[in-house]
């Protein structure tokens, strides 16, 4: 059936900010869908609050609403745009949930909007626990014994009836939020009450635990003529009990006979039909009893998911793009397979390699959180690797993780040889982000596969392969590098050993290993990901490396530039950098230069095979990158767009003679090296907070004393403010320097004067070496000292004087030109008492580049790429700075609700996973939109609780007054209450927790408070205020932890009282 002609305009809903369990993959799927529908001539309207996405690029959809994804706001978009149809299956759970609300509230009927791909009853049938269970039983499939309950009492009854341990799964939540394993009644009570609260429908399922069963997934697609195909099978290395997003997974399934695989395939097809997903992709999760093969259905996602992104990258089959085409009426046999060109999408990809995905965790950011994996997802990103064997792919994935590891052990890191046996066994039993290291240690000690299986429930097939890696490791240890023969070295590489590991094991250096490899001709070859195991010729240059015979990659004679991507998402390094890399590829295409992308993150747009001319899905280590460079010999390599990952390679690449284009590594060093940076600023007569570099505790104490407390301390070369602290006393310095690796005389520690209550300003600029254009000046809402990635900010600055803005511009230009920046530069300033301080200069793409580009309409990353290719800003027509009449506000989004026992206070260490943008002609409304998009619904009436530290009292006085004016009731703890009373602001007093009951926690639990403002000094949190913030988080009461943040929220509230929120497409603003 050809495409439908009865619909013309289609609304696509995105997934909003990056959060745990909803990351770049929905930008990848949404961007593919927008492109696919535009290609077919439909008018596409998009709503997504996340400015760092490719899908919200103004030239992609016809109209792009960077607005909060709420029922109210999407309704307004529908009222304004009157689309014929809505495609809700490509924006994750966020889009699906809002689509259900739109249907239930009658909006879709009222405006005659048809839901494509999956109707609302279909979504309910798949997502509602009870409906799903009934549907499965109707088609003769088994689901774990369970009870669906709506009250705590019923949950306890169900737990007793089913028998512990049980799994708690809230309905309609994302990434298993609020779910978990309860081993006893006490744990069940805790999980049930939070789960009921989190579920959109106050519904949880208490389910028989299948801990230890094997877990599998199938990606399935269906068209409107009921053709169904399976795109990919995935087997989880971690057994049931660990969320699939937190599991190491492998494609295709490894331990199923064809009979068992086909049984699963039949089930998946029956399920998509029974649930009634009309068109598009779904994901079905299975559990298999390893003893007898009994098959149970765990769940089904009636939409494109994180696993579909992985399956797309693993097979080369573009699930999201095809799903979009199926949604408008095409059938699978009408859509060509891009890769083979000859064949159609109506087939099942077959692969001739092994794919391993390993999740990336950031427990180091949340030291209070327990590093234990369960059914609620905790990883913030993932990496994928392709190899011809599991061993090769697994080791490649390990070194792609950006955790400093060079593979599966054998690199001298995270050694566990000191562990007592019982500690080792605990590490094997309890799934955690570190379990891989425990597996390595157990194998090194000669523990049998059977014993390890007993404890870890990881299938022996995986353990045997890991055992083979360790056996070879032990053999390598006995070898002498110069004497190593070609066959043995090749075997090591086929087992995935990196040069770094080989160097470690033989006591040599990576360069020596590399030299020997080249001398012996042990170099990687590249094979294609082609969907068909070479049965057909393929045309898309999507490669992975391996150590075999035939090389399928060939160098073209075009001018070519390589772009190094950012690797797995983690806090501090996310979608913003992928956005920049993708724009670099687009810019190169515009000027006719071949783009070669290197990246290892399967969630991203950059690893889509049609983003660049060539894609190498490879780890971003020096070895792997150099291997590609040896083959491709690019005319230039871009390292300044992919964040810290490629930047860390810059010096070594330059030393190897690789042509790094744009700002020179020396200039980067001049900005990053403390001493050189100081001299640089002195030369330009610019000011920075007093600072010094120290190596020992004594030095640290003396320097801090000279500079004067408070000071900021941090190790040099950090990303996302890792280990950065604000220290108020000698005691703080002692604690900081006592941390491992700090006072070791090798790694410098930086000490800066901390400017209290200063305003922080971020500037993104572009420079062609001579001329500098300011892209955007952003004024932070939170004061200096809070990581810029965690601060909300306003563009253009809302409180800075014109003189100061001019001073900022001049300083930025002077620094860019002095550094000889070619490309992008980001500067962080602090303004205190009208004095301008330079905090940091980064001559590279910053996290705010996409935000600035969306706010101003100037595609900074693209322009910068062209500048790096030698064009001048004049040639590019960028001659004046854009000044905008509207307001754009960036707000950060945090994963605190994922981690128990973690404080929500902000500080110099970055903790946010994503961001949203609020854009409006009115500043207050832009602020309100940013809050709403970040998931905070600001109250319009009720009680506001205030408890602020002394230094903030003056700051919130005016806001408190305005709250009273807006008829809010104020509630405050003693100190704040008496301060307010002294200044004539009426306010009720409430006990602190330590002052006896009823205290503030009681009020919060009774939901008597509509907004919590609680500020506290960085590390010196009192137990009291921590419990207040944590309660607010868990009870989902809006909270603010800085006085400046509170002031901006009040500004937003005032604006909301005057006028309601409207929607405008980004194309209207720019």
């Amino acid at each position: 059936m050809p495409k439908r002609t009865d619909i013309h305009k289609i609304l696509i809903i995105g997934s909003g900010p990056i959060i745990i369990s909803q990351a770049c993959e929905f930008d990848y799927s949404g961007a593919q869908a927008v492109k696919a529908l535009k290609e077919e001539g439909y008018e596409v309207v998009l709503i997504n609050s996340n400015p760092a996405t490719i899908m919200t690029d103004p030239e992609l959809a016809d109209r792009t609403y960077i607005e909060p994804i709420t029922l109210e706001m999407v309704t307004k978009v529908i009222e304004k745009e009157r689309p014929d149809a809505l495609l809700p299956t490509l924006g994750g759970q966020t889009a699906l949930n809002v689509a259900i609300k739109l249907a239930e509230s009658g909006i879709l009927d009222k405006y005659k909007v048809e839901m494509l791909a999956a109707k609302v009853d279909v979504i309910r049938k798949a997502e509602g626990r009870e409906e799903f269970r009934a549907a499965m039983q109707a088609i003769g499939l088994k689901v774990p014994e369970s009870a669906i309950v709506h009250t705590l009492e019923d949950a306890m009854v169900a737990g007793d009836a089913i028998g512990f341990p049980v799994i708690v799964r809230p309905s309609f939540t994302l990434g298993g939020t609020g779910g978990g394993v309860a081993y006893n009644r006490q744990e069940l009570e805790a999980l049930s009450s939070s789960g009921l609260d989190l579920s959109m429908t106050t519904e949880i399922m208490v389910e028989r635990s299948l801990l230890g069963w094997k877990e599998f997934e199938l990606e399935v697609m269906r068209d409107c003529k009921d053709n169904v195909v399976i795109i990919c099978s995935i087997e989880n290395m971690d057994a049931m009990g660990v969320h699939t997003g937190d599991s190491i997974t492998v494609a295709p399934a490894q331990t199923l006979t064809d009979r068992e695989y086909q049984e699963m395939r039949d089930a998946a097809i029956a399920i998509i039909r029974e649930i009634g997903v009309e068109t598009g992709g779904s994901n079905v999760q299975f559990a298999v009893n390893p003893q007898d093969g009994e098959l149970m259905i765990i769940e089904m996602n009636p939409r494109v998911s994180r696993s579909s992104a992985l399956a797309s990258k693993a097979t080369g089959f573009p699930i999201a793009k095809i799903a979009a085409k199926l949604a408008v009426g095409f059938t699978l046999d009408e859509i060509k397979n891009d890769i083979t060109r000859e064949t159609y999408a109506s087939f099942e990809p077959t692969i001739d390699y092994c794919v391993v995905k390993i999740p990336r965790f950031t427990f180091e950011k949340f030291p209070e959180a327990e590093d234990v994996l369960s059914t609620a997802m905790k990883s913030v990103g993932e990496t994928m690797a392709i190899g011809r064997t599991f061993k090769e792919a697994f080791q490649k994935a390990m070194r792609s993780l950006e955790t400093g590891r060079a593979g599966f052990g054998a690199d001298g890191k995270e050694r566990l040889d000191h562990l007592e046996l019982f500690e080792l066994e605990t590490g094997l039993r309890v799934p955690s982000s570190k379990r891989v290291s425990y597996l390595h240690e157990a194998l090194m000690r000669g523990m049998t596969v059977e014993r390890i299986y007993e404890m870890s429930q990881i299938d022996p097939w995986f353990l045997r392969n890991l055992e083979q890696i360790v056996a070879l490791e032990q053999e390598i240890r006995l070898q002498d590098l110069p004497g190593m023969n070609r066959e043995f070295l090749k075997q090591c590489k086929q087992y995935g050993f990196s040069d770094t590991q080989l160097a470690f094991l033989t006591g040599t250096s990576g360069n020596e290993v590399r030299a020997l490899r080249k001398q012996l001709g042990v170099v990687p070859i590249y094979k294609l990901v082609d969907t068909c195991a070479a049965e057909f010729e393929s045309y898309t240059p999507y490669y992975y490396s391996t150590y075999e015979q035939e090389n399928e990659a060939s160098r073209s004679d075009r001018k070519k530039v390589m772009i190094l991507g950012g690797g797995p998402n983690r806090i501090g390094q996310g979608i913003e950098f992928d956005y920049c890399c993708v724009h670099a590829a687009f810019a190169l295409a515009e000027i006719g230069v071949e783009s070669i992308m290197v990246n290892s993150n399967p969630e991203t747009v950059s690893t889509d095979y049609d983003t660049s001319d060539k894609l190498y899905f490879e780890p971003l280590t020096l070895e792997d990158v150099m291997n590609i460079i040896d083959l491709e010999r690019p005319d230039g390599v871009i390292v300044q767009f992919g964040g810290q990952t490629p930047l860390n390679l810059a010096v070594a690449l330059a030393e190897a003679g690789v042509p790094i284009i744009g700002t020179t590594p020396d200039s980067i060093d001049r900005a990053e090296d403390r001493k050189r940076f100081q001299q640089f600023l002195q030369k330009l007569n610019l000011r920075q907070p007093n600072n010094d570099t120290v190596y020992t505790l004594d030095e640290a104490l003396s320097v801090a004393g000279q500079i004067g407390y408070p000071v900021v301390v941090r190790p040099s070369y950090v990303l996302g403010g890792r280990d950065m602290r604000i220290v108020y006393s000698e005691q703080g310095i002692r604690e900081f320097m006592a941390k491992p690796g700090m006072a070791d005389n090798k790694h410098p520690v930086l000490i800066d004067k901390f400017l209290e209550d200063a305003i922080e300003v971020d500037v993104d600029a572009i420079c062609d070496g001579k001329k500098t254009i300011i892209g955007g000046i952003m004024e932070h809402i939170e004061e200096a000292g809070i990581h810029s990635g965690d601060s909300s900010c306003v563009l253009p600055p809302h409180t800075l004087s014109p003189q100061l803005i001019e001073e900022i511009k001049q300083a930025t230009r002077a620094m860019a030109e002095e550094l000889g920046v070619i490309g992008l530069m980001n500067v962080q300033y602090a303004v205190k008492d009208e004095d301008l301080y330079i905090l940091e200069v980064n001559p590279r793409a910053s996290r705010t580049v996409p935000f600035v580009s969306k706010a101003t309409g100037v595609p900074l990353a693209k322009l910068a790429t062209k500048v790096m290719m030698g064009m001048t800003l004049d040639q590019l027509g960028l001659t004046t700075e854009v000044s905008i009449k509207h307001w754009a506000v960036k707000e950060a989004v945090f994963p605190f609700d994922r981690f128990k026992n973690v404080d929500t206070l902000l500080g110099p260490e970055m903790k946010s996973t994503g961001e949203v943008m609020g854009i409006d002609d009115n500043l207050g409304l832009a602020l309100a939109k940013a809050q709403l998009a970040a998931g905070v619904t600001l109250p319009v009436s009720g009680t506001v609780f205030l408890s602020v530290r002394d230094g903030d009292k003056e700051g919130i006085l005016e806001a408190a007054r305005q709250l009273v004016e807006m008829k809010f009731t104020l509630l405050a703890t003693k100190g704040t209450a008496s301060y307010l009373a002294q200044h004539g602001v009426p306010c009720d007093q409430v006990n602190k927790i330590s002052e006896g009951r009823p205290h503030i926690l009681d009020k919060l639990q009774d939901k008597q408070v509509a907004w919590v403002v609680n500020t506290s000094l960085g590390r010196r949190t009192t137990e009291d205020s921590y419990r207040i913030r944590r309660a607010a988080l868990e009870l989902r009461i809006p909270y603010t932890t800085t006085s400046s943040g509170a002031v901006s929220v009040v500004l937003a509230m005032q604006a909301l009282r005057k006028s309601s929120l409207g929607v405008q497409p980004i194309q209207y603003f720019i």
Partner: protein
Amino acid sequence: MKALIALEDGTIFEGQSFTGRGEAIGEMVFNTSMSGYQEILTDPSYTGQIVTMTYPLIGNYGVNSEDMESAAVHPRAFLVREYNATPSNFRSEQTLAQFLKHYGVLGVEGFDTRALVRHIRTVGALKAIVSTEDLNKESLVARAKAWVGLVGQDMVQKVTCDQPYGWADNRPVPGTRFSTVQAGMSNPLKVVALDCGIKFNQLRIMTEKGCQVQVLPATTDADTILAMEPDGVFLSNGPGDPAGIPGVVEMVRALLGKTPIFGICLGHQILGLAYGGSTYKVKFGHRGGNQPVKDLATGHVEITSQNHGFAVDSDSLDKEVIEVTHINLNDGSLEGMRHRICPAFSVQYHPEHAPGPHDSLYLFDRFVAMMRSEKA
């Protein structure tokens, strides 16, 4: 143990035997299924061939006694990228290496199988030799070249049963003239299955669908078959060139119109020749579990299991008499046909799967319905 793989065009690969010493000569083909190596190995259609798996990790789930598609292993050698010696599956009874050794079939791993597959895709299926004994490249290539090959050869005689048998309790039971009865079956349809290299799953499925199956050697004549008064005749898959078995074709022509006929793979090609059409050797064949086939009557696409190196030339068929019912979506080749007058239909692919998707099981129902309606 070092093993050399030599193709008739001089291409050499070096691998390692995982089954000890051995040597095999045959036609080099590849299969793209990611699972189902045991069913592939026991499929008689691979007689005379050397099979390379495109999926690199083989042996993972071992071998069991339930997934046998015949009583023996048929390819002459089995080539994989990495053999896994320690299977993990609750049904596994032995390792793949033990299984291959038991049947005296050479297994080789540790070379660039994808390079081999790309080579065959480009130049077509080639005569080949795999050896741990003769490691002289020139000699190997010369011997591969000298091998007679499959074209025009009667390979069916090597695999068809010596004695008739029936099917009961999921196993072959010797006996003729429908003497074997599956317990609990009422009013069964009597099907003669002509064994050109039959796969057990064809028998399992027909039995499940209420057929009493009598398996007969491919050399049985038409009168003998008709004398058994079957409700229908099933023509199985099998190895080699249909042009090499003119006797079987003649026999089938004699059955046309006298009893309902359902043919699969070689059975389909035999019908094509019996209809007066011609067959040809496909460049490198279709072998795998992901071939899309379109049912022209419904427009529905089924994902099919395939294993064939010869095919019926669609242009050679008299379309007045023969209707094309299915085509391959990838290359447009003929995948299914039916006689417009006589009750006969056939498909080039394997609706009995094993290994592969279950999408095409409806064809057995169609056969059952055809027999019932002819009977009525």
